[in-house]
């Protein structure tokens, strides 16, 4: 799974397979991070303690 | 490091079993149990729940009395070389955690019990049912743990195990060779327990690529065949039989096909490699 693990090899199958995996993971990770940070920001910029209204 | 390189000269350890000589006594099985710490249960009659690295099958020619003939077929792990003779055996490529691997220096399919997490995909892949699962915790009654062989690790519940051609004997033989400053081990130094125990000398073991080894000649004999040749698993266990019905029991043939043709086809294929 990682290059420092015994089974790892710098070959085509590993690059293709793990490449796709890490690509997917990074999209998900980036998406999630964005959402969380954005939500934190949104929460902070709102008036504290005020209840929220529906959009 | 030159020594090291010489040692890794590729071998293809294989076995030749002369079915005309096998009397079905089961000494190979028992020797294997004793050598490889194979556990047992009170009820071993369900052979699909019974750990056996080598199992002797009894087959008959299907003819009525008194024309009946029987033949015993001992079946260890076939140590398949794979479809294109490159180690792509049915089980190795499917293992998700590299717990089983093709050992290039010897051609033996390894099984690492401590790596295996018991998904059993390799068992589904093996057409020979050579792979066995530890459904139970192994246990030895009374003080039988005393006879366990320290050269072979005891398998825990929940992992797959199989015949290793007594690889630990190869490891030990190499140790001796190192000590004596030899690069190669002798043919007699590395023999699996079953081959050694066979009381009628029906089993032979050695390097299939080494013309000085007996298996080299025997595996190329006209009487030689392998189990399920047509699946192109390329086993390293060869059988000898002078009877065509035995050969017919060893593979699947469509209507009108004869075992001989198949054998010849395989010969030319192997030769081209």
């Amino acid at each position, binding site marked *: 799974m990682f290059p420092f693990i015994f089974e790892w090899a710098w070959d085509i199958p590993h690059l293709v397979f793990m490449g796709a995996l890490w690509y997917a993971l990074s999209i998900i990770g980036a998406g999630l991070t964005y959402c969380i940070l954005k939500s934190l920001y949104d929460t902070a910029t709102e008036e504290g303690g005020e209840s929220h209204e529906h959009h | 490091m030159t020594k090291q390189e010489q040692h890794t000269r590729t071998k293809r350890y294989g076995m030749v079993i002369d079915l005309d*000589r096998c*009397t*079905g*006594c*089961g*000494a190979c*099985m*028992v*020797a294997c*149990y*004793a*050598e490889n*710490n194979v556990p*047992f249960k*009170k*009820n*071993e*009659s*369900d*052979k699909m729940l*019974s750990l*056996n690295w080598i199992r*002797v099958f009894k087959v*008959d020619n*299907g*003819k*009525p*009395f*008194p024309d*009946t*003939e*029987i*033949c*015993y077929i001992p079946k260890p792990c076939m140590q398949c070389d794979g479809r294109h003779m490159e180690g792509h055996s049915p089980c190795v490529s499917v293992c998700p955690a590299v717990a089983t691997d093709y050992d290039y220096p010897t051609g033996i399919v390894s099984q690492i*019990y*401590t790596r295996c997490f018991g998904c059993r995909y390799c068992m589904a892949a093996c057409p020979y049912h050579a792979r066995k699962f530890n459904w139970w*915790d*192994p*246990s*030895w*009654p*009374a*003080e*039988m*743990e*005393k*006879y*366990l*062989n*320290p050269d072979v*690790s*005891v398998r*825990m*519940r*929940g992992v797959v195990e199989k015949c290793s051609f007594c690889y630990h004997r190869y490891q030990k033989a190499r140790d001796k060779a190192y000590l004596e400053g030899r690069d190669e081990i002798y043919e007699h130094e590395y023999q699996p*327990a079953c081959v050694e*125990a066979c*009381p*009628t*000398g029906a089993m032979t073991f050695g390097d299939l690529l080494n013309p000085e080894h007996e298996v080299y000649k025997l595996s190329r004999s006209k009487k030689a065949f392998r189990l399920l040749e047509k699946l192109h698993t390329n086993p390293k266990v060869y059988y000898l039989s002078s009877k065509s019905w035995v050969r017919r029991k060893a593979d699947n043939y469509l209507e009108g096909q004869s075992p001989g043709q198949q054998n010849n086809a395989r010969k030319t294929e192997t030769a081209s490699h």
Partner: protein
Amino acid sequence: MKIDRRCFLSLVIGGAVGTTLTPVPWKLTDDIAIWTQNWPWTPEPEEGPSVYKKSVCTLCNGGCGINVRTVRGKAKKIEGQADYPVNRGSLCPMGISATQDLYGPARIKSPMKRAGKRGEGKWEKISWEEAISTVSKKLAELRSREKPHTVACISESDRGTVAYLIDRFLKAYGSPNFIRTPSFQDSQELALYLTQGQQGTIGYDLENSDYILSFGCALLDGRGNAGRMFSAYAGFDKKVKLVQIEPRLSDTASRANTWIPARCGTEGALALGLAHVIVREKLYNKDFVENFSFGFQDWTDEAGKLHKGFSSLVKEYPPEKVAEITGIAGSKIESLARGFAGARRPVAVSGGFGQGSLDETLAINALNALVGNINRPGGIAAVSEPDYLSWSEMKIDKTASNGRKKPRADEAGSSRFPNTGHLLYRLPEVINSSSGDSPIQALLVAGGDPLYTMPDSDAARKAFDKIGFIASFSTYMDETARHADILLPNHQFLERYEDVPTPAGVPKRIIGLTRPVVRQQYDTLHIGDAFIRIAHNLGGFIENALPWKNYEEFLKKTLSNQWKTLEKQGYWVDPEFVIPSWDEAFHTPSGKYEFYPTERNNPSGKDADALPGFKTSGIPGDPEQMPLILIPYESIRIAGGAVGNPPFMTKTVDANVIKDEDVFVELNPKTAKEYGFSEGDTAILKTPAGRAKVRVHLFEGIMPGLAALPEGLGRKAFSDYIAGKGVNINSLLPEVAERGSGLNRCRATRASLTRA
């Protein structure tokens, strides 16, 4: 500052984030996985230097040389000893599994006395002093009542130092009842004595023969000496022909060049049919028959009475008639006879259906005589014991000498069976039919497992129940030990010294040395030491007869000439053993090989009863009620003798032999169809001796009309790994004594199979 739920939540989140940044989760995940790789309840064998030790296996009478790998004093693996002159490296699965017997649950770990009813399985641990003195007191008491002859001792062998020691003990004590357990040796020894005038065993030189005609002898299925037979088989080249005569396609039959499925119990007739052809076509060895044999032609005795000779006898067995009896075509009989007589070194082997009757053995032996292959390479030879057991005669008291003169309890050597040495078969009947006190008051079981191996085991158990005192010296908790009053466990063979004389069937004179390869595991005592200590307790002449400190001293003194060789290579081959030429070989009244055994016990006085004629098969049971014939079959994967299957062996047994607790009876599909059975059906098998629940297995290789069960199952003792599986075939087989010899005539019985 207000602290609320959210602060706590924050603390937890901080802790969680922090924890992921420490080694805790990662290291623990890995360590837990490593823990599964190394579960404390999964044993880890101790490493150490491998030390190989030579010994001899005594699990059966085969006497194979073994090489035991030990690591730090523990026996790990048993392999055949490559240079051992009997088995030459080959070993049967039983021998390989002996480590399981050594450390297994069947071991009796200390002397014990019965705490409940007989056979109940309740025991109380006692000291060796108490065990020895209990036995001594019982024996002393019987002697004081002038009844030493009511003591009997059962042993698996009558040769070697242990048997000699026990026999010597009984002599000094005053009992004539040293009884060897029955085996195929009985009829062979008797036949050897009657035809050649020699005490000893018949050695078959199978290794050098080129035509082996086996009359149902399960050579490759474990009869006699499996290790030796396998090594002989391994040495056969293409020119060697093996012909197997038996109604079921056994492993031996399947490996034979020719399988002759003669009807069960007609092997003797077939032998006579073959002799007929050989005589008719004058294919016999004229030199031997004319110059070194007696009774081939008709002859006149001193009283002038004309007797029929062997050649006249076989005239009555023309191929057509034999074909009718045996079911083998006449032409086949003729070609078989020509093949046998035409071979360079042919040998005919007896031993079918367990013991084989004397008639049958004599008929088969006659074939060897006809082709003159006696005392020739590839033939048969008489093998007597070496004379190392030559301790000086001892003094015995009057009680002892009176006791010795009493007839044996098993009637062996009596006027009814004057030539037979041991007749354990007879013992149950003698005891059960006696009114009043049992003729046996104390029984010492020094080997064998008679309650399991004797035919009609119900009768045997009934007889044993009448015996007041039973002591077992068994290493394992076997059926007889379970029924004993006191247990004096012997060491397992991997823990003890013992000499192993030439195994039956081997045409050499060999002594092998069993020796301790591991130290004694439990509180056991060598059986030889037990007898020496009992003798010392009894005192007087008995003590003097066994003057040794212990068994080891006795053994070393006995084998003083051979000891060095034995210690070094594990065996000793008698260099002086020469197979004598024909003019010196025979010690019969005629000084020749006797086709007409003049010494044979023949109450009727008729020639027909002296000559080995074929008597219609005496298979017990009413054919109307019991249309099938049940035969036992030997399987190399199931030990049928005194020592039960170790777990390893049972593990090798196929699913169509044992399934869960049930044994399968083999039936020909035709027979099964006739009675409406299909594969796996459960059925009740009935014989004149008993009944049992079995399952049906269809096998094309068995003669229609037969049913076959494996030997070695249906044990009630030993370990959970064999006990309770299947049926004891012996309990289904009635005993049928052969007239004149008392031997069991046929190990087969009529049987019926009905739906469960």
